[in-house]
């Protein structure tokens, strides 16, 4: 495990032989990997390689057919999505997935509230928890959506929805942060906003960050380590440069011969 020595202490998240099959089709095939606090791991691979599904298995949206997931050494394979979130696995979805008829503000507030574990509080007033509101505001500012605070989410443009996804993830303040193509469909001048956010979190060197991204320039600018999935299997894992150079990535993923690759900033 090449990147191993670069990393400190025990892994925060591990998957062991993690697999899932849909009917005859193995979407994730015995993926074993460790993820360490303070490192940002980018997961790349062709469409349908199993990246999102791998995320789903980690965050508990899908039940594993085989293998296990460990969080801080605890086996959480049997736990449900909600439980895992409460234990610190946060997730931003690839296909935007929000509360369309609630306000932008409420979307974030709900995340904060969940973090604060106030969900089952029946007798207090939601509005009486000013601290939650303040924190929600804070995260809205971070993604520059504060001015759309009280619009319905369904009225946001695609890009803004993507940003809200990120805001919600941040608001959950998880130990493990999983971004699934956060910048997809985001305009070129908005992309930096999100990337800078990820940079900041990364700079704290506390959180474990997993990032699925197809934009090579983004990958280069962020990755400490790159994992490559292909047909559900883990085919490469290590320092960005070397992994990007590897043949499998060149053909299966970038789909180009090495010499022409430099101008492929796509």
């Amino acid at each position, binding site marked *: 495990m090449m990147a191993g020595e670069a990393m400190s202490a025990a892994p925060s998240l591990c998957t062991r032989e993690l697999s899932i099959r849909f009917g005859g089709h193995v979407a994730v095939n015995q993926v074993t990997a460790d993820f360490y606090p303070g490192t940002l791991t980018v997961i790349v691979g062709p*469409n349908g390689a199993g990246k999102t599904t791998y995320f789903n298995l980690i965050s508990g949206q899908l039940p594993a057919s085989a293998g296990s997931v460990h969080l801080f050494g605890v086996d959480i394979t049997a736990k449900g999505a909600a439980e895992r979130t409460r234990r610190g696995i946060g997730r931003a979805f690839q296909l935007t997935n929000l509360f369309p008829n609630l306000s932008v503000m409420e979307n974030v507030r709900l995340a904060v509230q969940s973090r604060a574990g106030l969900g089952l509080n029946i007798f207090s007033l939601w509005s009486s928890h000013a601290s939650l509101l303040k924190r929600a505001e804070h995260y809205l500012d971070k993604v520059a959506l504060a001015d759309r605070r009280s619009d319905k989410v369904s009225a946001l443009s695609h*890009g803004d929805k993507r940003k809200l996804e990120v805001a919600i993830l941040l608001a959950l303040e998880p130990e493990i942060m999983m971004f699934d193509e956060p910048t997809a469909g*985001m*305009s*070129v*001048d908005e992309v930096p906003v999100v990337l800078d956010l990820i940079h900041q979190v990364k700079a704290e060197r506390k959180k474990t960050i997993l990032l699925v991204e197809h934009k090579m320039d983004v990958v280069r600018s962020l990755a400490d380590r790159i994992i490559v999935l292909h047909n559900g299997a883990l085919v490469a894992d290590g320092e960005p440069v070397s992994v990007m150079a590897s043949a499998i990535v060149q053909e299966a*993923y970038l789909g*180009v011969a090495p010499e022409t690759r430099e101008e492929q900033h796509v």
Partner: protein
Amino acid sequence: MSDTILTLAGVHTHIGEYHILQGVDMQVPRGGLSVLLGRNGAGKTTTLRTIMGLWKASKGKIHFDGRDITAMATPDIAQLGIAYVPESMAIFSDLTVKENLLLAARNGPLDNSRVEWICGFFPALKKFWNYPAGNLSGGQKQMVAIARAIVEPRKLILVDEPTKGLAPAIILSLMAAFNELKASDTTILLVEQNFNFVRKLGDTVAVMDDGRVVHTGGMQALAEDNDLQQHLLGLSLAAHQ
């Protein structure tokens, strides 16, 4: 007839109480690939939806192939030979890939050779031919959405951010596909964020901001002129590389 296939003249669109498009003027030359750029919320998607008649223009005129389609119903517009790849992909998740394409082929059964041609670009479609499209991966859904638009020859294809979520390799084949379509004189109107992608494809370009077209011209010109890019798109390729 004229060599601009699609013309928008002072198009306004309201959604509920919001005034989204505030006078869009745009020409799409026949047989070329025109690109529509602009930051999030500029109104690109709304423009495409207005052309398709999915939002009704509250003011202004839209002409396609010399016909006024401003007030036409969506199906009729589609039947004039316009295909649409929406931002949300809008694939039918209950239906298999095959069935998705089958529906797109309005004039009867699928043309196998053309299906082959498409699957040449997107092999995944073949693999998941009889698979519920809802179970596909994000990128694969995107492929289905594009395939649906080109499964039969159309005069004009409106494509909303096709590259989002596509792996580089697939983006390359998408480029190839678009080039071949252009060759078979299909006009393409492409909404895109990924400048690196369109700079190689585009013939003409229009840039939107706040529901207006703020710049139109040749792609070449824009591609050369970094300051213009900077000024129009806040684009600085240096930023993250």
